């Protein structure tokens, strides 16, 4: 029974079938399937999609659809994990968002989904995220990494505002900051005191692994 549920859960994610994924996640909980095993099953599929995207065999609509389908199922499974007092094995925790004034989500979504596929716990704050929202999220989730995206040269400097706010709140030493986006390069990353920059989403995942030290 458990094997059948896991196999259906994976199939629903492969089909980007959000409703199906929710139904099978709920069934997993109802039937007493280990929520960690169910999460691992989903992670296997996410890994397939993430690797396929990095190779060029999968495309953006696949990545985004897999990401949102996965999120729908994991919110159910995470509640069960918490209820049972279990701990999900994670590569680390990441808070991610596109900075204030910038509404470009694709690059951020690519990195967020690939991070989740690689086994990170990802808290996506969305787009147009103000410095104080980042600060609140860092306090709440105590992430290993804060990841920020900016596509525009006009909004890139907002990343510096967030880093300064982290310093002011005494949080800078507690979190690694990685940045990316069309307007960013290594020189800029150095100039604002970020811990890392990557030019592409797959390289961002490599960077995150190295920053989290896991």
């Amino acid at each position: 029974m458990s094997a059948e549920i896991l196999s259906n859960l994976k199939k629903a994610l492969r089909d980007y079938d959000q409703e199906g994924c929710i139904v099978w996640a709920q069934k997993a909980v109802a039937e007493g399937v280990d929520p960690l095993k169910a999460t691992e099953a989903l992670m296997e599929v996410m890994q397939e999609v993430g690797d396929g995207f990095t190779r060029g065999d999968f495309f953006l609509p696949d990545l985004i659809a897999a990401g949102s389908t996965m999120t729908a199922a994991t919110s159910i499974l995470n509640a069960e994990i918490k209820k049972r007092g279990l701990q999900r094995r994670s590569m680390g925790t990441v808070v991610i968002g596109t900075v204030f004034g910038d509404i470009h989500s694709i690059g951020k979504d690519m990195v967020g989904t690939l991070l989740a596929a690689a086994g990170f716990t990802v808290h996506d704050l969305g787009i147009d995220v103000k410095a104080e929202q980042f600060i609140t999220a860092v306090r709440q989730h105590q992430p290993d990494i804060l990841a920020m995206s900016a596509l525009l040269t006009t909004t890139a400097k907002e990343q510096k505002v967030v880093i300064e706010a982290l310093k002011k709140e005494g949080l800078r030493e507690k979190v690694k900051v990685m940045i990316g986006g069309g307007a960013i390069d290594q020189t800029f990353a150095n100039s604002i005191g970020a811990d890392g920059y990557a030019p592409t989403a797959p390289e961002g995942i490599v960077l995150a692994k190295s920053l989290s030290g896991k």
Partner: protein
Amino acid sequence: MAMKGFIRKFKPLEILSEEQFQAIHKATLDVLQNVGIRIEHKRALQLLEKNDCQVDYTNMRAKFPPGLVEECLQKCPSSFRVKARDPQNDLIMGGNTIYFGPAPGKQTVNLDTWEPREATRKEAYEGLTILDALPNVHFLPSYTPYFGFEGLPPVMRIPEICAAKLRNTTKWFFEGYSNDCEIFVIQMAQALGIDIMESVLASPPLTFYGETVECAFRLAEAGMPGRVLPGAVCGATAPATIAGSTVTANAEIIAGVVLLQLMRPGMRVEVKDFTFPQNMRTGSPAFANIGVSLHGVLFAQIWRRYGIPSGMTTAYPSSKIPDFQCGYEKAIIALMAALSGVNLQLVQGAIHGELTHHPVQAIIDDDLVGMIGRFLEGVEVNEETLALDLIAQVGPIPGEYLSKEHTRKWWRKEQFVPQVADTWTYPEWIKRGKKSAVDYAKEKMDQILATHKPTPLTPNQEKDIERILEDARTFYKEKGML
């Protein structure tokens, strides 16, 4: 079931006005009736004389009355099926369907120096495996991929290449003729129960040699389809003008069509434009000259009016390497031909003219053909594609379409995703070693050869083919040609 090919969903490109079309048509009939065509074959001349042509046996010249021309053009089927080894690969020629095939080369090239050299048997067989695997190769022409291979005596080239195609692809193909080899090609087709079309080739200006007419008789007797084409060079074997060389080419092709229809009424015939301007620097055909496109677009328009399936001059580049020149030459020739409404076109694999072919180039060109094919399929406009409900649901910013099922369903249908073109961002391109389409095509070639296995002949079919090849060897030995 038959090979799908591409369906052109909009009006074809036509550049002749009605007045211009009539002028060319009239001039063509004038050449046929008053100048005539030299046909170096007594039986053919007798057949023409019996059907109201005025024949001069001393000069082997026949003059064609317009009535006979009209009658024979009407006898040709406007659409017909040709049988492949795998019925799913049959072609249905005519109408708005366009099929693409590879452009063969005499030799292969060295991938490091790009210099030509003779292919080995293994390379010829591998080249066919690649063509069997490529999704936008719908059929194979004669002499493909190479005109021969190392160690092959000249008279055995066509029979051996024909056998190689049968062994390495289930796609439909046509063949050439030379030194009576059509006897054996026809036997192979009959042994497998398939159609192999062969060329009936005019030798401009206004001449058919006996050998090609003999081939035509054999095709007609066997009930095989024929393709009539003249290989003309404007300014050398045809007038330098596009209009004038269209007149001579049409007169030559019509003479061939009349002959075939008299030999076998209703015979399946495809006609091909194979005309090049002359390269006035070197004397060779000016491959990929824009005159090729002008000639081809006229040709397609005229033969659509005559109601006979047509093919257009091959996308042969002048370039010697897969560079920018090669790309624009092929793209313009292939796109113009596709828009003009021809039914068959040769694109994949040619590197320089018909002198060289390589699978790497064929793989790159398969993307070009995919792009053109996608364009031909046009735009679907209906409730679902207009997406009015979705537009209302998404609304202005922060609405977006990337996460929508509609996008997942439609993006691949609307776009064409190339197999080997470099479409990465700068950082990805650098990370991946600054690879070009040529690099990706080399990788793809290795991958196809490692994984794709063409459907082999059955042991009995293989026995038949080997026996026919042995008969051919004996035939040429007895003639002292082997």
